[in-house]
């Protein structure tokens, strides 16, 4: 589903985001990615959604070689890979409903279809009663659930979560992780970048540890080791 072949990413200022990094994730997997700050975890996620281009190496997503993806094809890729962030990245001037609908509207989905998908998604993330609220009227956990809902509208094959629980307390964090697990069970490949040791240890899923742009450990049913 995701394949990195000796991918190197060097930023303009000569810092290395990834060094000869190779990686393979199969469909339906739930993978946690851990590592110290500034080691290249976000870089990995950005490479997958083509927010950054690799300096060297090859990236294949679902059989599609995106190494030299054209500018005009990027929106198509992003509709197939859901992504959520530590800071939620919701549109502040749109309601919960509109934020989720927007992801469908951008690719010209018919109104009747939007009207049926969005309420479904709202039910999955348990936010039916907040549909007309604006993001600044929600708690952190609720905002993250909106973001997850938005990432689900296209039934993406891959869901990237970059520290989705970074701003949340333990209970809210667990809720989000449970939601990710549920989504994973429905068949979506999930990549979870996190600093949260308890979360990783409780998951008992595959754990990849990155240090300075290199994979230093890759264990099935692994633990958070640093």
């Amino acid at each position, binding site marked *: 589903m995701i394949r990195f072949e000796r991918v190197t990413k060097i930023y303009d200022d000569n810092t290395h985001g990834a060094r000869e990094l190779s990686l393979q994730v199969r469909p339906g997997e739930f993978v946690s990615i851990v590592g110290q700050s500034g080691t290249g975890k976000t870089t990995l996620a950005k490479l997958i959604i083509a*927010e950054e281009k690799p300096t060297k190496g090859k990236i294949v997503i679902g059989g599609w070689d995106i190494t030299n993806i054209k500018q005009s094809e990027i*929106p198509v890729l*992003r509709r197939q890979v859901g992504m959520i962030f530590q800071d939620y*990245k919701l549109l502040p*001037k*749109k309601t919960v409903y509109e934020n989720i609908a*927007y992801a469908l509207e*951008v690719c*010209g989905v*018919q109104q009747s279809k939007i009207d049926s998908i969005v309420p479904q998604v709202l039910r999955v993330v348990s936010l039916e009663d907040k549909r007309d609220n604006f993001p600044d009227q929600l708690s952190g956990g609720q905002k993250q659930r909106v973001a997850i809902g938005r990432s689900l509208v296209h039934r993406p094959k891959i869901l990237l979560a970059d520290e989705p629980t970074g701003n949340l307390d333990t209970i809210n964090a667990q809720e989000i992780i449970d939601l990710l697990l549920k989504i994973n069970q429905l068949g979506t490949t999930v990549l979870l970048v996190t600093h949260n040791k308890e979360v990783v240890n409780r998951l008992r899923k595959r754990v990849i540890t990155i240090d300075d742009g290199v994979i230093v450990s890759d264990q099935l049913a692994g633990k958070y080791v640093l």
Partner: protein
Amino acid sequence: MIISLVRTTKYSFQNFWRNLWLSIITVFILMLTLFAVSMVASLNLLADQAIQAIEDKIDIDIFFKDTATEDDIISAQIYLEEIAEVKQVRYVSKDEALASFRESHEDDSDITEALDELSDNPLPASLVVQAEALTDYAFIVQQFETSEYDALVEDKDFSDHQVVINRLSGLLTRVYQGGLAVSAVFVVISIIMMFNTIRVGIYSHREELAIMKLVGATNLFIRGPFVLEGILYAMVASVCAMALLWVVVISSAPYVNDFFQGYNFSLDFFFYSNLWFIFAIQFLFSLVLAVGSSMISIGRYLKV
């Protein structure tokens, strides 16, 4: 396609409404820009009309001796009319001169009685000459003085005016040029201000723009609502600017028309008869300004 258009429209109205404060400021600045440009244009128009009016007001009277026959005077008229710089020449016969003199002194019984007592008409026949431009008078007089007709002339009232005419025309040209330079600077300043307001507006949207891209929106889809919003701004601003201009026209028309009394110019009439044209110019101007600035400013945030 149609569905995107509907959504674009929806977003642009939503944007306008939910960022109401920013929208109001943008429209306000745009309106001021338009108003400034229209005022500058109006002043230029008025200056132009004033110069024309003054040019119309100025003429030379050439008074003929009583010994000159009407035929002589007519041929002098023809001679003058053939000079390229001459706009028109009007012949005022002795009788006409007397009639208009009587008319203008109707209320003065002393003068009318004195005239009645005279057996002869004391007023001379004359030619009233108008030049194409103020600066042409000196040349025309010079031409005339070299001709045979100069011998028939009793008097010309031109020389008294000459200095004034020269000064006035010099002054007017300088005022006009100065006004043009000042207005150009003014227009440029307001355009820069407008551009900056829009840019700040877009800047405040930069995170949203990045998010839209992350969610898979194409650049066109993101730009669309901003284009429509620009059209909306332009529409509202030009309507407001027209209203403001209307108020100015209404309140200054009496004075302006007074100044141009006797000339074929009326400010309010000019405004009403060119209403749609003025509106169209304002709308187009603000449209280019608003949409242009937002498209330029938005570009750099869409490279995510």
